[in-house]
């Protein structure tokens, strides 16, 4: 049984349908990447899994348990933590407070704590007392990742980590992922950058217009097939 699955997941913003029956699965210990152009439904998928958007209960299963209709705090307390698109640090909280708030709804013992996160991102320790939003974009992304890890999640959802960051910073951020994997968390990465996604993921899902158009192991997918699934240009 997969750790996290979606079955025919549909999502709506009022009358607008954003997802049309998405099926995906995440095994324990696995890292999957979801790629696609703007408007493909990647972020909607993340918002659905994390409980920001409510869906049919049976459309999302966590360890076989229906969680599609749960609220965000309920989903989070099960061990599904999210690094939201645009980082979304709390401006009135310091760096350290932003990290501490990550364990508000789930203070589980595990590999991640303030010390281990400061060891992974030493620059955050230096700036622990500055407001979170006074940091550079890359440092803010580190805080957002650390904040999600503070709850020692079983599933880490990362929405558009590379958005608005310089390539060299993106490389630094992704350098942290082997350590996160080794800590036992399963990871879902949403990316527009296909190259980056293929490097870190065990499996890749490509989305277009609210549907999964291609999936498989990066080594088995040709560049052309991904290109077609990404842009809809049929070769």
């Amino acid at each position, binding site marked *: 049984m997969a750790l996290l699955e979606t079955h025919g997941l549909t999502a709506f913003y009022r009358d607008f349908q954003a997802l049309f029956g998405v099926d995906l699965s995440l095994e324990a210990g696995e890292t999957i990447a979801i790629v696609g152009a703007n408007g493909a439904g990647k972020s909607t998928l993340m918002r659905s899994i994390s409980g920001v958007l409510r869906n049919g209960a049976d459309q999302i299963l966590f360890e076989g348990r229906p969680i599609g209709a749960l*609220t965000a705090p309920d989903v989070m307390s099960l061990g599904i933590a999210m690094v939201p698109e645009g980082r979304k640090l709390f401006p009135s909280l310091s760096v350290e407070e932003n990290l501490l708030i990550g364990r*508000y709804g789930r203070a589980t013992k595990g590999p991640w704590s303030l010390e281990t996160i400061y060891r992974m991102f030493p620059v955050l320790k230096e700036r622990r007392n500055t407001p979170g939003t006074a940091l550079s974009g890359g440092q803010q992304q580190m805080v957002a990742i650390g904040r999600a890890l503070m709850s020692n999640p079983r599933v880490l959802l990362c929405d558009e980590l590379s958005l608005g960051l310089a390539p060299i910073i993106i490389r630094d951020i992704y350098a942290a992922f082997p350590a996160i994997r080794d800590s036992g968390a399963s990871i879902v990465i949403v990316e527009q950058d296909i190259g980056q996604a293929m490097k870190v993921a065990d499996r890749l899902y490509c989305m277009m217009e609210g549907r999964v158009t291609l999936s498989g192991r990066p080594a088995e997918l040709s560049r052309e097939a991904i290109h077609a699934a990404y842009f809809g240009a049929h070769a």
Partner: protein
Amino acid sequence: MSWADTILQGVLLGGLYALFAAGLSLVFGIMRLVNLAHGDLIVLAAYLILVLVSGLGLHPFLAVLIAMPLMFGIGWLLQAYVLNRTLGPDILPPLLVTFGLSVVLQNGLLQAYSADSRRIPSGSLETASVALGPFNVGVMPMLTFASAVAVILILNRVLYGTELGRAFRATSDDAVTAGLMGIRPNRTFAVATGIAMAIVAIAAVFLGTRANFDPTIGPARLIYAFEAVIMGGLGSLWGTLAGGVVLGVAQTIGGAVNPEWQILAGHIAFVLVLLVRPRGFFPRAVD
């Protein structure tokens, strides 16, 4: 020297206004909710303490310890079952609902306790005073001011030094992202209003022992509270104390010049402060 004395009395009166305003400031800071029934809830708490004092023969300061958890409960229920439903992008529903609540409270209290003005008896404390250098200072005004400082110290400790305070600030910043941290905004709001109402109970004991009150005086207390919060700068609790002190000093100076000018002088000071500093003394950097 009599001017110095007047100013000192005004500063101490400012403590009472800061107590009126602290709960209002907390609730506005966290959920951007303006509670128009705040003054009437102070009066409700004053009647609650009066009942405890006259019915059970308790000392007012003992009665307030009982009234605080009761008012916390009232605030919690009010937020959880009524006010949370009014929160949203539109700011009008909470204003209308709390305005309605204000009318209901005033008329309910009139029905229950008549329009007679009442006072919470506090025995010898009513007239006790101590000599501070050249001044004679009432014990009750000093206790009022000390309570205001203590309330604001504790509130700041809660807001900036506890997990609950982090949750308050995070929810105020961004309720959706707070949900991703496992924070339930509606529950957080209920606790915040509960705390505000516990502070209202403290304000009520000083309101009720200091002077007479009747069911209709709530709206004027709301205005003093508003003026203190706005002068201090929205979201700053120490600013609220400063605003309360400015209001208190202006009122006592106005009253010393001519007793008819007491209330007016407070409002004029408010307008002057707004003219010079439209965002108050200590506006929050993040807004």
